[in-house]
């Protein structure tokens, strides 16, 4: 357990640092998927294999591909100096991030969580479905949340189409830029 924990921690945190500090945007996206894979490994350690599968499918698969498409559409050759990728307020950003991290870690460590023992999680995917639908003793609020999330996803898909749709005569075509 310790070996797996240390390995996954190093993988997740080093990849996350790489996302922030990498000068190449594509490297940032690939390191982000490595970080998500580390979190999927944590989910397996925490007895949530169904969630780990969701994590690999949705984050490592879908979100990374969508972000790579976004990079492909929006990036142009750029200067690869370190000063050009970070804002002018990077010192306040660093200090507030360190402050948030230290505060959260301190609060989480001094908090008395009572009797904790691993192994209470959902072992089988079926019970995850029962929780999501709020049946069979699960909190009934999950049924409402499930419906709200469904509507939210539909709205998000329609909104993405509407926002990114190109109206005729708006913007510049690629051929006009090249020619």
């Amino acid at each position, binding site marked *: *357990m*310790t070996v797996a924990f240390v390995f996954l921690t190093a993988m*997740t*945190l080093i990849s*996350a640092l790489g*996302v*922030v500090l990498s000068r190449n945007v594509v490297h*940032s996206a690939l390191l*982000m998927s490595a970080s*998500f894979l580390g979190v999927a490994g*944590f989910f397996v*350690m*925490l*007895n949530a294999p169904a*969630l780990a599968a*969701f*994590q690999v499918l*949705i984050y490592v698969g*879908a*979100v990374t591909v*969508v*972000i790579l*498409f*976004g990079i492909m559409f*929006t990036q142009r050759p750029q200067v690869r100096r370190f000063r*050009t*990728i*970070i*804002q*002018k307020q*990077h010192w306040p*950003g*660093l200090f*507030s*991030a360190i402050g*948030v*991290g230290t505060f959260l*870690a301190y609060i*989480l460590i001094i908090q008395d*969580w*009572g*009797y*904790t023992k*691993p*192994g*209470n*999680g959902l072992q089988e995917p079926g019970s*995850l479905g029962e*929780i*999501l639908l709020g049946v069979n003793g*699960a*909190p009934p609020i999950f049924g409402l949340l499930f419906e709200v*999330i469904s509507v*939210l996803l539909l709205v998000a*898909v329609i*909104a*993405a*189409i509407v*926002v990114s749709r190109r109206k005729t005569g*708006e913007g510049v075509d690629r051929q006009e830029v090249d020619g």
Partner: protein
Amino acid sequence: MLQQFLDTLNATIPLEGYLVVGAIMFAIGAWGALIRRNAVVVFMCIELMLNAVNLSLVAFADYLPNAGGAGAGYAVLVIAVAAAEIAVGLAVVLAVYRTRKTVNVDDINLMKG
């Protein structure tokens, strides 16, 4: 000596271990969202923060005896919200890029008075 080392290797990780990893990951994501100029990288850092929260939720679901695994259900909801957010966010970035020819968040000052 060897037995002690093996016991250390096989010891169960306390709950605080996962929570601190989640807190550090959240802080790294917040740092990147604050300092990076590229809007797409800012989205990646927001995804990192959401993943850190997911890690904490699943750790609670596994370690707290009375949670009943509800944290895993919340984690699924967070994943769905993150997917919706990345779809709409990248559409906004594409629309801004089409009109302004940049994704630098310092240059996008449409609402500056």
